């Protein structure tokens, strides 16, 4: 059933209770990946490649093995050599052979930081010492870091067996281009003839890291009977189980994964890095093994997201109708194929009602860490380019950029560039909300001397996904409720799950406690990602709570000895439905629970579903900033994030998603990038020089939640986590142009780049 009607009065959904796991987190007791220990465990460390591209000629582990306290040393030979097998994992299509080779290199290292060997010893410092004693002989090969350079015919080739897919005829020469993909609506080439104004520009974005504050960590215990337990911080306990089984050649039933608290993921913890190595070390040593990454290892060895090069051409008539658009996206995949090229192509024009568009792109490997998902993977890169181009178009047309977006905005019935006809979308509503927002209606204010001020606006789209999810609702003996979710809670989902169950049951949310189940205590759930948990797992939890509610009515009927249709559930109690049902005092959950043994046993609801129909998310952001003309330093003065969220279950955590996503986008826009030395080594593998925004960099981030309900979800939920990272880069770039008159086509818009661009503009 759904709870969307105007006559449905929601008592819990839409309020802001304290999250059930809150106290543990503010007193420092919550156990994250590195906080967990088991008796007798030893410590693992990884040896990583110092080269961007090299053939491994030999690995001599004898000295490490001889060091006192060392219990196991492994190389790729300790894991099965997996044949090439396409699969749909994490970010998108990938290959388990590649995943295995990314976990530990076999014949070649493909990036600085690529794991080569691992050691387990009785203390972390002995393990570290042992890692230093491993001798690897490399034959260093030429490397290629930049995406466009990697596409050149004479570029060093990473994989001799990589032939570009999606081109006809199939190439016979290996290259770094894994795939070409194209979407076409109408006929863009001839439609440009209708345009009065055409803008065309090249854009570039740097790869950025998810930069969760918690480094990857796990504890693994492999038993002599081949059964293993894994405690780790990840975006999906079932994902960890599946990938470990695949990479170690184990049966899924032999692995039990306990999800620990996760200290941020943003897509970066949708893969395994340490767990397979820890399993191999534990198997070889016969002891539980703990592994944690250092911050440097996180940057060098775990996935950043793709950087890209984008060419955009877009044309409109004098009255502001966009009549034709073309876009080419070259996207870095890192060392193995599998950049989010599909979504990068499907998203950047999804805000608009267009009839003639061609968008194509390439999935390109280079000597960087294999990319991992990062919030709306692919969309921020291409949308930075297209939303910058739309702004440039508005300027050339002499139109307000918000009005230009309104004129072209996608609505219900618009056919998206990638195919489907959109429905139940709230993009226009975000634009209208922007238009009437306090921010848009306040003056920009005077810049200080030597500074330039500007305002920019940009929009973005993300599909959101559903997928397989499980939830369970248990009535405890005293009438309190335990909800079990199949998804790690990254940002407050225990609260939203419990709230939906409480709403269904008509109970106080304090009497409903949510926990995250391990892989044996709840049904399979796809990982926490794709903005799917409140939608899909929320749907499963809601269904499980409804089963419990129906069962509670049935039990009340048994206690009253009336038919169960004659019982209705209201405000957390069973009532006789109408006069004819008989006269009985209402029964609370506690009353019914107290008698549950006598009426058939424990009361439990479990739902395992494959949720379909996630509603797409649209966001519009407004940015005011000030630039120091002489230093190129940018200060964000004011920022508003507006988004169609379907329905906010816990508005504080929804606002938090918008604020966090916007600030990650501001970092992406202004300072974050992977910097490589000439020989292909990562030069800024730490928080000192990988510059994520700090508190003093920012203003308050205002939010406006637009609620256009998703009819496919019982409470109208749409995913909210990903859309807010799509607009910021263009919103900042557009504000920058408004301030300085200079269009910044390359990210990040760091001070040296801004100063150089301002100097160039002055001539």
């Amino acid at each position: 059933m759904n709870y969307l009607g105007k006559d449905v009065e929601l008592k819990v959904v839409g309020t802001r209770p304290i999250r059930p796991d809150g106290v543990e987190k503010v007193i420092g007791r919550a156990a994250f990946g590195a906080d967990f220990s088991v008796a007798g465990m030893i410590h693992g460390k990884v040896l990583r490649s110092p080269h961007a591209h090299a053939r491994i000629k030999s690995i001599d582990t004898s000295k490490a093995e001889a060091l006192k306290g060392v219990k196991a040393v492994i190389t790729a030979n300790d894991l099965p050599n997996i044949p090439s097998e396409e699969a749909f994992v994490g970010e998108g299509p990938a290959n388990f052979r590649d995943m295995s080779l990314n976990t530990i290199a076999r014949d070649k290292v493909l990036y600085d930081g690529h794991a080569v060997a691992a050691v387990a010893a009785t203390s972390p410092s002995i393990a570290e010492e042992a890692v230093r004693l491993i001798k690897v002989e490399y034959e260093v090969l030429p490397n290629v870091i930049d995406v466009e350079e990697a596409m050149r015919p004479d570029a060093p080739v990473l994989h001799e067996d990589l032939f570009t897919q999606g081109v006809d005829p199939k190439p016979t020469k290996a290259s770094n281009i894994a795939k070409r993909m194209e979407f076409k609506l109408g006929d863009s080439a001839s439609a440009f003839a209708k345009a009065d104004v055409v803008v065309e520009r090249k854009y570039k974005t740097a790869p950025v890291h998810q930069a969760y504050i918690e480094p990857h960590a796990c504890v693994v215990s492999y038993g002599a009977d081949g059964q293993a337990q894994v405690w780790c911080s990840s975006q999906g306990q079932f994902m960890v189980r599946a990938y470990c089984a695949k990479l170690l050649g184990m049966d899924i039933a032999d692995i039990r994964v306990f999800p620990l608290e996760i200290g941020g993921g943003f897509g970066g913890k949708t893969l395994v890095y340490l767990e397979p190595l820890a399993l191999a070390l534990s198997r070889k040593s016969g002891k539980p093994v703990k592994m944690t990454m250092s911050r440097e290892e996180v940057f060098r060895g775990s996935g950043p997201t793709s950087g890209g090069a984008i060419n955009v051409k877009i044309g409109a008539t004098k009255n502001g109708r966009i009549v034709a658009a073309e876009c080419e996206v070259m996207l870095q995949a890192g060392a193995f194929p599998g950049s989010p090229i599909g979504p990068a192509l499907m998203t950047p024009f999804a805000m608009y009602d267009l009839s003639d568009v061609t968008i194509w792109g390439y999935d390109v490997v280079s000597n960087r860490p294999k990319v991992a998902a990062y919030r709306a993977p692919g969309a921020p890169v291409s949308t930075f380019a297209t939303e910058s181009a739309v702004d440039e178009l508005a300027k050339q047309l002499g139109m307000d950029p918000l009005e230009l977006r309104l004129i072209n905005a996608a609505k219900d019935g618009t056919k998206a560039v990638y195919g489907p006809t959109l429905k139940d979308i709230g993009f226009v509503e975000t634009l209208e909300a922007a238009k009437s927002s306090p921010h848009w209606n306040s003056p920009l204010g005077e810049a200080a001397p030597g500074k330039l001020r500007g305002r920019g606006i940009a929009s973005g789209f993300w599909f959101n996904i559903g997928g397989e999810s499980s939830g369970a609702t248990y009535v405890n003996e005293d009438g309190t409720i335990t909800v079990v979710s199949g998804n790690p809670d990254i940002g407050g989902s225990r609260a939203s799950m419990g709230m939906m169950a409480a709403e269904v049951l008509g109970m106080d949310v304090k009497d409903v406690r949510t926990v995250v189940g391990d892989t044996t205590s709840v049904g399979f759930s796809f990982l926490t990602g794709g903005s799917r948990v409140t939608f899909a797992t929320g749907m499963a939890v809601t269904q499980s709570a409804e089963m419990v509610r129906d069962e509670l009515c049935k039990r009340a009927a048994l206690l009253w000895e009336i038919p169960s249709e004659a019982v209705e559930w209201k405000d957390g109690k069973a009532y006789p439905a109408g006069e004819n049902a008989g006269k009985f005092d209402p029964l609370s959950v506690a009353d019914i629970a107290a008698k549950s043994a006598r009426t058939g046993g424990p009361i439990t609801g479990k739902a395992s579903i494959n949720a379909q129909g996630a509603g797409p998310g649209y966001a519009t952001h407004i940015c005011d900033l000030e630039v120091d003309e002489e230093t190129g330093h940018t200060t964000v003065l004011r920022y508003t994030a507006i988004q169609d969220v379907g329905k906010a279950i816990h508005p504080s955590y929804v606002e938090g998603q918008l604020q966090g996503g916007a600030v990650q986008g501001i970092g992406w826009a202004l300072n974050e990038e992977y910097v490589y030395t000439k020989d292909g080594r990562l030069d800024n593998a730490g928080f000192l020089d990988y510059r994520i925004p700090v508190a003093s960099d920012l203003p308050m981030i205002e939010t406006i939640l637009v609620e256009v309900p998703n009819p496919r979800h019982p409470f109208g939920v749409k995913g909210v986590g990903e859309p807010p990272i799509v607009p910021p880069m263009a919103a900042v770039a557009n504000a920058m142009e408004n301030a300085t008159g200079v269009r910044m086509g390359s990210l990040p818009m760091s001070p040296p780049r801004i100063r150089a661009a301002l100097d160039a503009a002055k001539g």
Partner: protein
Amino acid sequence: MARVTIASQMCRPYMGTVTEIEVDASNVRALIRELDRLYPGLGNQVEESMAVAIDGVICQDTYLEPIGADSEICLIPKIAGG
């Protein structure tokens, strides 16, 4: 008959230059079967690597989603996320 459109080139190896066809199918499973009958290999491609948008609603990894007589079907790449 449901109208099936493909905006990407992902089906080109099976369908050539055809980007729009009509298919008689009451759910996704029947659709996959029918696509494979018309273009051998396409069924597997759709089942393994693609999502099916039915009247604008994206469905993945499901046989059972119903398809209406006049439904608009779009074959698109599967979507994941962060």
